[in-house]
């Protein structure tokens, strides 16, 4: 993929799927961590699985009003 192509179409797999993919990996890690470790794993699961909720709230707070 050339730089010229990149600037013409801003879409590539990273901009479209990057965010959801990162959250997905984080969610899976959170789902497993609480199962594998009762102490730190549990705290990590709260952060990892809470991330989609917090991020949604953040997007909502800074949405553009028309």
């Amino acid at each position, binding site marked *: 993929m050339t730089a010229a192509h990149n600037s013409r179409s801003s*879409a590539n*797999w990273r901009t*479209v799927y*990057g965010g959801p993919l990162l*959250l997905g990996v984080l969610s*899976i890690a959170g789902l497993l961590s609480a199962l594998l470790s*009762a102490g730190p794993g549990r705290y990590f699961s*709260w952060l990892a*699985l*809470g991330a989609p909720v917090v991020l949604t709230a953040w997007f909502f707070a800074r949405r553009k009003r028309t």
Partner: protein
Amino acid sequence: MVHTWSSLISTLFLLLLCITGLPLIFHHEIDELLGYDPKPEIAQPGAVKRSIDEIARTALANDPGRVLQYILWDKDEPNNIIAFTNSKVDGDPDAATLRAYDANTAKPLGPVGGGPMLIFLKLHVDMFAGQPGKLFLGAMGFLFLIAIVSGVVLYWPFTRRLSFGTLRDKSRRIASFDWHNLLGAVTIAWALVVGATGVINTLAEVMLSQWKATELADMVKPYAGKPPPVHLASLDKTLANARKTAPDMNVSFVAFPGTPFTSSHHFAVFMRGDTPLTSRLLKPVLLDGETGEVSDARDLPVYLKALLVSQPLHFGDYGGMPLKIIWALLDVMTIVVIGSGLYLWVVKRRKHRSHAITAQPSLQPLR
């Protein structure tokens, strides 16, 4: 097309599952509040645990004319012992009576379960339609998984010109579209895991039958042709033998001979570990119903282990109250995804019907 139809067919049932599932996340707390989750008395200093045989006798005296099916040790309340009685050992699971007994006093503490949460549970598990209802909901869950995967494929053409997290409020339709995409994208891994583990759970009976027909049948081969036990062995002796076989584990529950979890000749004592993961991975010890001697002990096959591990991942009950709250929020977000998806389909159909050929560039796949 795949996304539209897999979602549409399952929409109504998915909404039912998400809505009934929401209170079920907190069923422990709600049952406790409504008095369906009795607690043991505070143990006196130096209290000695009563024998399990005494608790079994008390349980039978409390429900005359019935038989014991299972005795279960509450994982979170070690002094809570729950006895299941039924009209016969292989009676209808819905006809079972569950009562809690205090391990130190053998006193009955009250009925377990029941109440409004049982109605939510039945609606969620099989819609009061038994095994066919359960398998039907499993199929709906499978359509949900197809809808999620096809949604990932559609996500590219529909959102490639939008930055992640775009929320516009130009119109109800565009707002629904943006919320559908955002909430669908951020909850996807959780929804896939909860959906897939839910589908696995609908196959529990099928897996149990498979285990009974293969592994259990093999374990009880030496007993072929023998009549079922007449006088049952002492439970305390049986449990002590089971503990000797798996010394680093605790008893989860004991199944009486003839119940669905064992053979007609054996007690099955299911042992559990003590970490979040190993407490789910039960190990059955089979003991002769008349003598209480160990006949066999084998780990469960992979498919039953998968079922047991999939349960917490569906219930969200393994990470304390904060995880339950997050589970509930993610459930509500999934309800919004399903609801907005349905709305988008209705609007699109209405547009087609009225032959309005207005250009809707923002909601068309971009090429």
